[in-house]
């Protein structure tokens, strides 16, 4: 039964990649009205404002939750065969992903003037990014040393590349016009690789 649930987590991770890609699509691609000059109280379905206010937060939360489900499946599948140190990193990565989901929930449900709630969300995000960064890199490094280098590279690459791009952005170096796509590309690739691994590799392969 557990083996089947690991396999199901594979397509769920692929779905999270789709959610992320839809979420970062420029609002100019959606019909008017688009965000800008006025606040529209009841925007039409699938308009740019509706996507920004309703669809995009839902997609980001869904993607975040699906990544958490997928990584948890990997942890349950491979936990028994991991070293103690790798398990610690993996657990930190999972906690970080969970905190990231909590921060996203807090931020996207905050009202226009709920500055305290937004500040709390930012603090939780900062903590979650640290945990995700070191947790996933440590977890991935364990796979690189074992016979699953592709899974390891995906787990290391996503936080490392995202961190580099984020750092460049903070340093004032302008990303190309598709910068947002570049920023989520490592995470998207990671979800696809981990999802594929869950779909194709059974727990018995490692044990």
């Amino acid at each position, binding site marked *: 039964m557990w083996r089947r649930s690991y396999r199901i987590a594979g397509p769920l991770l692929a779905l999270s990649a789709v959610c992320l890609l839809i979420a970062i699509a420029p609002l100019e691609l959606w019909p*008017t*009205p688009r965000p*800008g*000059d*006025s*606040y*529209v*109280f*009841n*925007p039409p379905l699938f308009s740019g*404002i509706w996507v920004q206010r309703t669809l995009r937060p839902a997609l980001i939360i869904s993607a975040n939750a699906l990544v958490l489900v997928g990584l948890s499946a990997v942890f349950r599948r491979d936990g028994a065969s991991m070293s103690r140190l790798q398990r610690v990193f993996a657990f930190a990565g999972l906690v970080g992903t969970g905190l990231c989901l909590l921060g996203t929930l807090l931020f996207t449900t905050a009202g*226009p003037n709920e500055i305290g709630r937004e500040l709390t969300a930012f603090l939780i995000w900062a903590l979650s990014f640290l945990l995700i960064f070191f947790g996933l890199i440590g977890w991935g490094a364990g796979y690189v040393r074992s016979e699953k280098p592709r899974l390891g590279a995906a787990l290391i690459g996503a936080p490392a590349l995202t961190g580099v791009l984020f750092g460049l952005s903070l340093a004032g170096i302008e990303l190309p016009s598709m910068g947002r796509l570049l920023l989520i590309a490592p995470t998207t690739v990671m979800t696809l690789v981990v999802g594929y691994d869950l779909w194709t590799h059974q727990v018995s392969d490692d044990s």
Partner: protein
Amino acid sequence: MPSTLRRTFLGMVATGTVASIAGCSSSCPDSGAPDPSHTVEPRTANSGFETVPDSSWPSPRFDAANTGYAPVKIATTTPSVQWQTDISTTSASNDTGGASAVVVADETVVSTMSTGVVALSLRDGTEQWRREFTSATVPSTVDIGDNPAPPVMANGRVYLATADSVVALAVDDGTVVWRNTDVAGTGVPVVTDAALFVPTTDGVARFDTTDGHRQWTVPADGTRLAVADGTVVINGEQVVAVDADTSEVRWRRSDRPTGYPVVVDRTVYVSGSYGELIGRSLTDGTEQWRIDRGRSLEVPVVTPESVYAIERPGEASSATFAFDRVDDSPPEPRWCSEINLGGAVTAAADDGVFTFQRDDGLTAFTTRFGEAVWQYPAEYQAVSLAVLDGGIVSVSPDGTVVALGGE
């Protein structure tokens, strides 16, 4: 204390109290001023309209019901200044008392100054004629202080309330058609097909438009009126509804109204001194709905589908609000856009809503979702807008008249 001064003072106290309770911020969740697609170059005036706008704006708020809505289309997303004229200096008069709202009919733009009335060509803004009168004054709808009472136009005539009479002039050359010196004007006239209604020192009076004789007078202290469906609605210390034929008072309510009353589909829209926007039945004055956000909602513009109003929280940025009209229920907000601090005037056409505001100038929004289409960054605050079929005419307090239109 004169009643207009007392109302201004009470209005200030009420606005200040409401603002302090409301936390001095607009209820619009929008942040930041609009970013329009096109900016009109302010100091580049053309030689005039190639095609003169074929419509009129004969009253300060377009019609006798004060809707502020003209069923026309501006039909351009990239307007330019067609002409600009300073009516305070186009003749040798020592006119320093500010300008009234403009009215437009018969290809003529008319505005009053404190010392007279000026007519300009709608085509290119050249002065057609000027007559000297001491204008009646009314409290400003935008700021504190008084402005000359604006004229109204109908059937080739310009009707004025002056400090010692009520006057009808010919639009063509400004000659006096009749002048009634029995009473002095104290407010903004309203003209219909049947008669002329003017706030006077004796009360609100009805005059025959052909010869100016007074038909009746009702003792009411209002300075702004609306006439619709056989009823005169008077905004004074109270809102008073009077039968337009018999002068019988139908109802009165203590709403402490400000600005112009607006009447559409037998509903009277009243901006109260305490910030609320109230809808009352024209028939008996019963309250149909009320919007009370603790912040003043002013200058309502009412179109067949929408209500537009400026929310002024006091010490913070104002906001333009668009509401959907709902039968017998409060209008429901559709969109809002933050504008800067200060008073504003609005008007609407079929394809746009226009907000003139001190720091941003004139901004044109689409009616449905409030997208900023263009902006005219004028260095002054307008007294009023006249929206025409293919153009807009505005006037500043110091008498600068600007016409926008074309490409």
